[in-house]
């Protein structure tokens, strides 16, 4: 398959939200045809330029997906499926970024705070961030402040995303930020919070750097903090 064809197919499959060959396209077709994972593997085997795969394949596709979302042709599940496909591609491309001279966009640690098992929002943010090219480490849920601090120390992320669904657990976001302060790591990481009971005001009151009312806003906040 020619280089252009593979890149074009990667783009098309991201738009269709197909991670692997077993996945269906939007209209239920394409099952058995290579998905983004198989296509990126093939592109790497053929030594295609990683920059082309990312810029002409993944990024161009996500731009189109974003336009379709704006035009109400696509809905959130479509965006997430495409982001998931990009996330799968980036995982395969990650080991090749350095030798291609591509600087990773940034690393994000995500966690649902102590006492809270609700992680749908955090999981959606994980998919969206990976789809946008961030390296994401998902620490899971019910995370003690000290465990999060330890992970920040080891992983050295640029961003920490904290999530909570309950009014009784959101206070643990503040405790986690406090623990970061006490460990001397607070200035190394930007802290973004999200979840149903929290707000912009609450984020400010506990000393967080940003607040995302939903997954898309969380991504937008991180993108804006990345560029500053």
């Amino acid at each position, binding site marked *: 398959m020619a280089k252009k064809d593979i890149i074009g197919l990667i783009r098309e499959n991201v738009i269709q*939200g197909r991670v692997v060959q077993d*996945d*269906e396209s*939007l*209209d*239920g077709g394409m099952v058995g045809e290579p998905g983004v994972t198989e296509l990126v593997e093939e592109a790497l085997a053929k030594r295609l330029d990683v920059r082309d795969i990312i810029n002409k394949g993944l990024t161009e596709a996500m731009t189109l997906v974003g336009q379709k979302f704006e035009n109400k042709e696509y*809905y*959130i*599940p*479509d965006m*997430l*499926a495409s982001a*998931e496909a990009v996330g799968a591609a980036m995982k395969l491309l990650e080991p090749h970024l350095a030798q291609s001279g591509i600087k990773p966009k940034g690393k994000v640690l995500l966690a649902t705070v102590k006492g809270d098992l609700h992680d*749908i929002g955090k*999981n*959606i943010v*994980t*998919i969206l961030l990976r789809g946008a090219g961030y390296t994401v480490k*998902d620490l899971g849920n019910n995370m003690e402040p000290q465990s999060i601090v330890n992970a920040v120390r080891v992983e050295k992320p640029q961003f920490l995303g904290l999530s909570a669904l309950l009014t009784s657990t959101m206070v643990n976001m503040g405790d986690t930020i406090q623990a970061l302060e006490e460990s001397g790591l607070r200035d190394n990481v930007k802290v973004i919070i999200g979840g149903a009971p929290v707000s912009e005001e609450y984020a400010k009151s506990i000393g967080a750097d940003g607040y995302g009312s939903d997954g898309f806003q969380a991504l937008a906040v991180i993108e804006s903090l990345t560029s500053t």
Partner: protein
Amino acid sequence: MPREGILISNPYKRITDEQVRQIHRASLQILVDPGLICFSKKAAEIFQSHGAEVSAVADADHPCWHIKIPEKLVMEALDSAPKTVKLGARNPDNALIMKGDEPRVFFISGSETNIWLDVDFPTYVRKSDSSGEIQVPEFHPRRATVADLCQSAHVCEHLETLDGYIRTVNIQDEDITGDNKDVNKFFASLNNTTKHVMSGLTSLEQLDNVVRMAELIAGGEEALKENPIISFITCLVKSPLQFVEDTTDAFIEICQRGLPVVVSSSPQAGTTAPIKEAGIMAQINAEVLAGITLGQLVNKGTPMLYGSVPVRARMDTLSDSYGSVETSQYNIDCVQMAQFYKLPNYSTSGVCDAKIPGQQASIERLFSDIVVTLSGPQFLHCAYGLLDCNAVFCLLQAVLDDAHFQMLKFFLNTPKINQPELAETMKQIKEVVATPQKLYIRYIRQVMRSGEITPPYPFEGDGESDNVFALAYQRMNELLAKPVEHIDPETTADIFREIPGLLPRLNVYKEGK
């Protein structure tokens, strides 16, 4: 292919089968004792010639007869009345096939109100802060015109859930008279919708003109019989138990022509019928059976709908309380009676006591729409746009009602729970549980596009603002701007040439239009 309507898989039953039989027996008893008073000489003669006991009422202000209808006549009529009734349409795909033993519901408009409710959205400025503005809907009632009837037929043509059109308003233009009302209301309706058109008849003298107009549109006398694009509503029995002269005479003529007809009765519990459920049910059922019996005696096999518009009286005004819970109970009971006789039922829901669109209107109409639909009447009328105890029609409300019926139709779809469906989702469960995010979101997409997921409420505002009326108004205007398929120019010319009394301004092909 005719319209699908919505098939109710497990119709709600309010009364037991034994209670249905008890009402049936009580109604038969009422038809003999006390029987009915009949103000139509023709009807009295028909009953008498078929063995009913008929005697002139002495000392009455108007000539009238006392009629006792024996059970045998009623049972023969129930036997000969068709169990399947077709209501045709200009577009054959909009035909309605109603089977008395199949609870397939069709949603229909209604029902000749005198008042049309206009709406506009004036802007108000906040007293405390002149930069704060708000648009508030205002409703303005006025006498309805033939132009309003055209507009409502036009919008109803485009309302997806609406299966058939009953003229919504009573046309009261200055140039509309008793002699030309029928032809104009039928033409205005037929010319603006390709769905079935049903109406009452104002003047018996106009029946032949109306039927001839329908024949011209359908393609001749036989074609109209095959595809009855019009049908008639007749309230020939006025509660309690009186055959009125003019409607009964019109009913007899309609039956002679073999066109579909609704035998409707509208007793009011508390005033023209007993306040108790058992009483109003025994009476309304007797009244409808009396009408069906007469119609079948006139012309065996005339297609008929068992028409029921029972209501409870409002305690404060003694007007019809369509919004009362009891009204829905009576209507469901009537659905069950019609099902017992295996006759298609013309039932009622969606009318509210509220005078304008709003929360009360939504609550009252949605309540009756849901519960009456669940019982499975074949022809559910009054369901769009009616307010103020059936005195007012509002086109904006009809558009809002369409959204209600979208939800209701969706709710009543057939559950898809079967082995292939379960096998497919079991595969999904295994796949998702094995992923780190454990989300099923990717599987939404195909289902969403297949139409299996309800769309959001179409008039949802942004954030905390409630823009329901403004968005529905916008939708109403979009539908008005969308063209409808009028009757073709040649047929229109034939109609205007042959049918007297039509208003020239209704001819869309006339120069200057």
